[in-house]
């Protein structure tokens, strides 16, 4: 059972799935870092992306590129709305984190309900056929699709890294992530940075949705029940503020899940993810490698500074 070809195939399967999970994790971690928000509304972005592609291709029969462009526009627009009319409003009201949690969760629930209302609870894939040419590399079956997914993810990660490290755009976001008040004093438009990070996250989520949906069919509740939790665990393991580490953690988690099939029946595999949350919370509440810079952020700051937070 534990032969090399099987292990290698599992490795590849894990890697292939990891592309989408990596994108979700990085998107989540980015918003957590820059906007300082646990974006539990990310499933809503996924649903917007996924079902707009579905509507474009399976519904209206539009060409691939049109569908992609449309979906990107819809998702980015939704992300901008979430930030501008959601997070910004509550931030200005100095709402407690309780409010953000409720808001994001309810937005996700709304998205799931809307999807179930219009599309039903059946599983749907983005393309009628999920087959793609398979090549045999040694003993491992590698589909072109998986290669495309991995390559795209790698390119997106590289692009994001270059963006964050070398462009003014990216560096401003990092500055806002570190200290929004100070960034504002230096003339950085903080609201615009918040918008940008949400829009970037939307792009990543949309790409992830594409790779998931062109491989398998999903139900509307999957993004909330499955993908979100993966993304959060990855962000927790990596540590708050470490965006690319979250991507790496997601890949590791995906491999872990792939290999778990060796010891766990498939219908219990999802339990691993749920158990993993508890393990993470208990063992790494601040992330795996204790980032000293982030420990400074743990230093308790007074909750009510000058004005009193509103509900």
């Amino acid at each position, binding site marked *: 059972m534990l032969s090399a070809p099987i292990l290698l195939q599992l490795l590849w399967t894990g890697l292939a799935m990891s592309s989408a999970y990596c994108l979700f994790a990085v998107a989540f971690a980015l918003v957590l870092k820059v906007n300082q928000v646990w974006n539990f509304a990310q499933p809503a972005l996924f649903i917007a992306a996924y079902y707009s592609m579905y509507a474009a291709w399976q519904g209206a029969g539009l060409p691939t590129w049109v569908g992609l462009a449309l979906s990107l526009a819809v998702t980015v627009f939704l992300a901008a709305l979430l930030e501008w009319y959601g997070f910004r409003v509550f931030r200005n009201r100095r709402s407690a984190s309780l409010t953000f949690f409720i808001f994001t*969760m309810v937005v996700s629930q709304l998205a799931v309900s809307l999807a179930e209302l219009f599309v039903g609870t059946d599983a749907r894939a983005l393309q009628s056929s999920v087959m793609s040419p398979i090549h045999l590399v040694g003993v491992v079956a590698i589909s072109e699709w998986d290669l495309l997914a991995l390559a795209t993810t790698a390119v997106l990660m590289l692009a994001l890294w270059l963006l964050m490290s070398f462009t003014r755009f990216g560096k401003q976001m990092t500055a806002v992530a570190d200290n929004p008040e100070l960034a504002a004093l230096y003339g950085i438009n903080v609201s615009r940075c918040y918008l940008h990070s949400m829009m970037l996250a939307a792009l990543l989520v949309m790409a992830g949705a594409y790779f998931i949906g062109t491989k398998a069919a999903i139900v509307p509740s999957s993004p909330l029940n499955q993908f979100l939790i993966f993304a959060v665990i990855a962000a927790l393991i990596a540590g708050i503020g470490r965006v690319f580490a979250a991507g790496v953690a997601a890949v590791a988690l995906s491999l872990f899940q792939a290999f778990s099939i060796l010891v766990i029946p498939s219908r219990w595999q999802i*339990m691993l993810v749920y158990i993993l949350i508890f393990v993470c919370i208990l063992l790494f*509440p601040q992330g795996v490698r204790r980032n000293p810079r982030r420990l400074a952020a743990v230093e308790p700051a007074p909750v009510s500074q000058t004005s009193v*937070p509103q509900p």
Partner: protein
Amino acid sequence: MIEYLSVLAAMALINVVLAVSFNLVLGYGGLVSIAHPIFFALGAYASGLLARDLGMPVPLAILAGGAIAMISSFALSVPALRVSGDYMVITSLGFQLALVHIITNVEFTGAAGGLTGIPSAFEGPIRGQLGLFAIAVFAIACVAIVRWLMHGPYGRAVTAMRNDEQALESLGRSPMAIKVMLFAMACGMAGVVGGFYAHHFLYLTPEQFGTFASTALLTMVVVGGAATTWGPVLGAILITLLPEAIRFLDMPISVMAPAQGVMFSVLVLIFMYLRPQGLLGGARAGGGVSSWYGSRAERRVNGGVKP
């Protein structure tokens, strides 16, 4: 018609207990727990199984169900609250989904088909009315207990905790201990009413306890008014009746459920934007928390009428 109203009343009263107990968690404890319906489920399934398979008398089974729910709550609250309340959301989501998954995939709970053959609490021709009466008594007791508790010194401590946890800690109280015990009490209440539910409706399926139920509870508390005595009661009654109001539109069940989900989510969002304190929440707010209505100051200012 009587039958229909009786069922509706029973559901409304059960929702009252659920909303009041969820308010303890969310409104007083300040914790966003998605998992509240699962403690309802734990109490219901435990009570049903104990009575059906082990022959335990129904009242005892109901109490045992409540105890099991209460003890299970520590498995969630202690890890999740160890560092900060921020992790409660995702941990409770995981807890909820995990337990629903287990219930759905394990034989002895009846799996996805549900648990049947649960012994009824009462026998005889008026068993429905007796059951309703028992639930009503329990609901009133819950509201009364919460009100009494929150008017007294405990309410003072909980309000202070909601205002500023660290300041409370610097005075010698442990906010984590308060939250864990509040959470345990709330889950115990939900577990007991779960037992009532099981022995009244005699049938349980795992899908009743999923994230849709969490949204419904959230709506009840947010719309009614968090951290008030009567807010969740009003919210529970409204949210129980609201879907009935659109039932007459005769939509298929596959549309009804998500339509309700949409309705509840939209309601919560509207209230969060326009009236965060809910219908019955106090107009005066300090730190996002209404003033403590147990204090003499509140009586002086608001003329003695308590929300």
